[in-house]
């Protein structure tokens, strides 16, 4: 029987270790960028306690249907260029808390990896919760036979964030997951009124970490309220705000991911 992931060309994990640094944001923007490059993309959201992905595409009220090969992912557009799977679609009410201990989370993650009928995709992006625990261990184990392309690690510039991401790098090393690079998110804020740049969450920590750890640095993404607003409203930031300060950084990250598919894995 053909695996549901057989038609997926590249699997990419978005990790951090630290919460609230922009994993789901980067996953979403990366998917949109890749779509604009003509790719078919899926996002698998394995954050079971705090599933943010459905909302970022304004499809949080959609339900999931079954087909012969498993669950049908939720498509965000008519062209079916981006498809999603998240526990968010399985909740009866959006405010329902998923208060599960590890073993039950692990069971659902195995199902998410094996039983979603993705069809043919160029990229499957796996958005994760913060940490190095059940979800991460289970996801990596379940994906291992499918040889993921690797992981992008997201951090904000400050030391407190970088401190957690160092541990995530160790997690990648221990589990044999290739690190495609580090993204330094929320790196500087340009005041829309006077253009003064303030480093609200400090600056440079992500780049330093990449250098220290010997992994590629994929770039700095600045804070942009237009980006936050787009995500809140489930709109396509890449399409609507190509002049935004965050756009070149996000486009560059997507390009490096595309380039990495041409290189042999480490």
């Amino acid at each position, binding site marked *: 029987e053909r695996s549901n992931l057989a038609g997926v060309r590249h699997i990419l994990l978005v990790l951090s270790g*630290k919460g609230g640094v922009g994993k789901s944001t980067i996953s979403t923007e990366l998917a949109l960028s890749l779509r604009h490059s003509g790719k078919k993309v899926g996002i698998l959201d394995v954050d079971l306690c*705090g599933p943010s992905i459905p*909302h970022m595409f304004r499809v949080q009220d959609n339900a999931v249907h079954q087909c012969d090969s498993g669950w049908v992912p939720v498509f965000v557009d008519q062209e079916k260029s981006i498809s999603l799977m998240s526990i968010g679609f399985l909740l009866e009410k*959006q405010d329902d808390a998923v208060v599960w*201990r590890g073993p039950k989370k692990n069971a659902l993650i195995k199902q998410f990896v094996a039983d979603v009928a993705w069809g043919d995709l160029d990229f499957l992006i796996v958005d994760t919760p913060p940490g190095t*625990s059940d979800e991460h*261990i289970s996801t990596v184990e379940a994906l291992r036979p499918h040889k993921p392309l690797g992981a992008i690690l997201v951090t904000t510039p400050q030391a407190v964030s970088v401190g957690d991401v160092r541990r995530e790098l160790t997690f990648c090393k221990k589990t044999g997951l290739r690190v495609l690079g580090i993204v330094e998110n929320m790196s500087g804020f340009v*005041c829309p009124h006077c253009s003064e740049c303030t480093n609200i969450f400090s600056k440079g920590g992500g780049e330093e970490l990449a250098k220290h750890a010997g992994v590629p640095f994929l770039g700095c993404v600045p804070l942009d*309220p237009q980006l*936050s607003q787009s995500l809140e409203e489930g709109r396509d930031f890449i399409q609507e705000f190509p002049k935004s300060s965050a756009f070149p950084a996000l486009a560059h990250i997507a390009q490096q991911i595309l380039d990495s598919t041409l290189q042999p894995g480490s």
Partner: protein
Amino acid sequence: MAEAVEGPQPKDCPGTSSAQAGRAAACQGCPNQKLCAAGPAAPDPAEAAELRERLRGVKHTVLVLSGKGGVGKSTFSALLAHGLAADEAKQVALLDVDICGPSIPKMMGLEGEQVHQSGSGWSPVYVEENLGVMSVGFLLSSPDDAVIWRGPKKNGLIKQFLRDVDWGEIDYLIIDTPPGTSDEHLSIVQYLSAVHIDGAVIITTPQEVSLQDVRKEINFCHKVKLPIIGVVENMSGFVCPKCKKESQIFPPTTGGAEKMCQNLNVSLLGKVPLDPQIGRSCDKGLSFLSEAPESPATLSYRSIIQRIQEYCDQHHFQGEKTI
């Protein structure tokens, strides 16, 4: 979905998040029994007595929760600890149960410190004479060490933190948690059922993507009967240091914490604006309240800390809670 089980739910199902999950008579034969039973049990009477004894000297316990990551739980916990410890007559303890991402040691300027054992148990690491801290961070020998543990092992360490640390007599025990509604949160609530928790302070940022998770956390609190002291809206606006105009970096597109608190009938303890000095102080392990005493953010934090103190004083628990 929170209490849904796959397959038919047994009659008298205690609920998947209950202390009796997997262990009640009604669980026999349920396909989920093994999954439910894998979590921490309510402490057995001997264990409960042990925890009660150990935590007998703790007057007030405050949990700092979110649901959403990166909203400022640890930052707030650290500043709450500093704020309360400013009164030298008060003894304050800060327990960090974020096992995968322990930020507290760095924020308290205690990176590299180790835990010492004494005859009476593990000694907390002291920042000031009246402010002690415990975190898994102190048990790791390198900043690159990752704690790659599944739920049951995390639960075990949390129990040890409560049972084996010699906290002594404390006026305030503040517990910083990781994001989510999972093992760590269930464990803390279950192990502390032997003692009294004054309540939870829930941190959020203004955007809907954060509030979504926080509403779930509020539901979690209701489910496990944890009182909610109130909600703090963090990163609430940024004033440009140059032109002094305000920007909403994390826009409250659905009314922010204020609207959510109104809808869910919980207190809004206050709103804290973004200040680049906060991150810098945390990175340096210094108290932002001391580093920038005139900042609008400091004034907000102080007002919120006062409200929490008032809540604890008003709801002072007389005598021991019986299970």
